């Protein structure tokens, strides 16, 4: 790095750190929905990535609708698109839990397969009903650019919004879990299903809502991902492996673990990608993860539970 001035190196470190933080947020958002579902029901939702894509499509279609019918709102629709994406993904998730997942408790491996089937169906739905081509949301100009902090340093505005959104979702989720009746019911069901049922709480309804909320959060994440990446029927395949790994590295069912592993993976891939070319960086990323998991087979943070 001898050719560069101190300012340049400083600027790169700042920007690269910010990229790392953005990536961490992405990992956390990817894993959040999975984490909730796993924590509640002990199953892995293989169609998770499709819920992300569902959110993306909601955003794209809503944007199209707004630009065509209500051009006046063009600059603000993003704010409404987020709850809308949540709503759509929540609805679909609610139905999926009702008709599919609820029949498969205690069979986690089978749930894996069934939800994979679901993901194929959802992908084909996107393709048949929305179209095979990629879509893009018309984003308002304020969300696209960057904030030039100095001559070299550019901080992406979408990255800042992403950071805010992540914090907002995490805080919201924490508050929801501890302060609302529904959240307490969720926790109770997670800890002792029979007992909670005996106390007159409708555990089935709780499960359905939990699953819906998890999908809804994925929907929000997906809606936001359109600002950074593509939306196409098979876009989910880009997310699937990474979001599972975030969860596994963190230790299943631990929110702190999710943070730590999001940060760990982001740090690792930012460093690796800076020093080597993309594909090989990805190979090394996975190899490092495997080795780490060989040592920490339960993930970096796992709830110590009495067996």
């Amino acid at each position, binding site marked *: 790095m001898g050719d560069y001035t101190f300012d340049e190196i400083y600027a790169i470190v700042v920007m690269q750190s910010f990229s790392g933080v953005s990536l961490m947020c992405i990992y956390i958002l990817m894993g959040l929905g999975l984490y909730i579902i796993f924590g509640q029901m002990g199953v892995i939702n293989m169609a998770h990535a499709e819920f992300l894509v569902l959110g993306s499509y909601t955003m794209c279609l809503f944007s199209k609708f707004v630009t065509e019918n209500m051009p006046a709102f063009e600059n603000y629709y993003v704010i409404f698109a987020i709850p809308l994406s949540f709503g759509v993904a929540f609805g679909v998730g609610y139905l999926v839990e009702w008709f599919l997942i609820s029949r498969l408790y205690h069979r986690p491996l089978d749930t894996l397969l069934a939800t994979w089937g679901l993901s194929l169906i959802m992908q084909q739905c996107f393709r048949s009903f929305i179209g095979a081509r990629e879509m893009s949301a018309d984003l308002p100009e304020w969300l696209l650019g960057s904030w030039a902090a100095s001559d070299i340093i550019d901080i992406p505005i979408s990255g800042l919004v992403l950071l805010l959104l992540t914090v907002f979702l995490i805080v919201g989720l924490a508050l929801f879990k501890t302060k609302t009746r529904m959240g307490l019911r969720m926790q109770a069901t997670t800890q002792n299903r029979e007992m909670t049922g005996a106390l007159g709480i409708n555990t089935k309804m709780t499960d359905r809502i939990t699953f819906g909320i998890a999908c809804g959060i994925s929907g929000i994440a997906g809606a936001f991902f359109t600002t950074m990446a593509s939306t196409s029927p098979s876009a989910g395949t880009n997310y699937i492996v990474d979001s599972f790994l975030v969860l596994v590295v963190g230790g299943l069912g631990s929110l702190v673990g999710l943070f730590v592993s999001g940060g760990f993976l982001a740090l690792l891939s930012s460093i690796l990608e800076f020093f080597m070319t993309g594909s090989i960086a990805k190979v090394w990323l996975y190899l490092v993860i495997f080795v780490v998991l060989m040592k920490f087979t339960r993930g970096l943070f796992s709830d*110590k*539970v*009495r*067996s």
Partner: protein
Amino acid sequence: MPSNTDYLLAIEDLTVSFDGFKAVDELTLYVDKGELRVIIGPNGAGKTTVLDLISGKTRASSGSIRYNNVELTSMREHEIVRAGIGRKFQTPSIYEKLSVYENLEISYPWGRTVFGSLKFTRTKQVIDRIQDVAQQIFLSDMLETQAELLSHGQKQWLEIGMLLVQNPELIMLDEPVAGMTAKEREATAALLEKIAKERSIIIIEHDMDFVAKIADQVTVLHLGKILKQGSMDEVRDDPVVQEVYLGH
């Protein structure tokens, strides 16, 4: 390093904590050769955890468990079993898809490695041993029955039989008579007395009549600590024990 003892099983200063909660707290317990020890105590006293610790299912936070003066706390489950300790679970844990014969055969202490089990054959010796055990556990007529068809009590016996096939020196039973009819309990008591002649037994049990029938020594656990130790009568008469447990 604790000194060697003559005891078959010597548990000293054993502690295990889950997220700060001490399920077993500085426990010290000795079991003699040929002894039949019963552990009682209210729910949450740490009884099953003690068995988990001895059998290697749970790792101790501190303290030692020595069996024939061999330290067990760092060994893995199958090594502990091979050292001569057998364990029965609270709910009957048998292979429901296999026949009674196959259930017993799997426990036969030969060919327990991958390649050993590939080479394992049913020799006369194996068959004789299994028939012998089946006789003891009252299931000799049901060798070909699929295990899931057995009654609850028979499943309990089958699991005890699976231990016997292993021929361990120390047997640990977690509530062996739960869910049995009165008649079955009697038979079980007789069975255990017979078994106890050749080996040591640790039993966790709630049924006081049953305990009174079989126990040499009774240990009362409460909140991970030993509250009282002695014969059934001594224990029964102890006011503290009555307060925490029997009195309720």
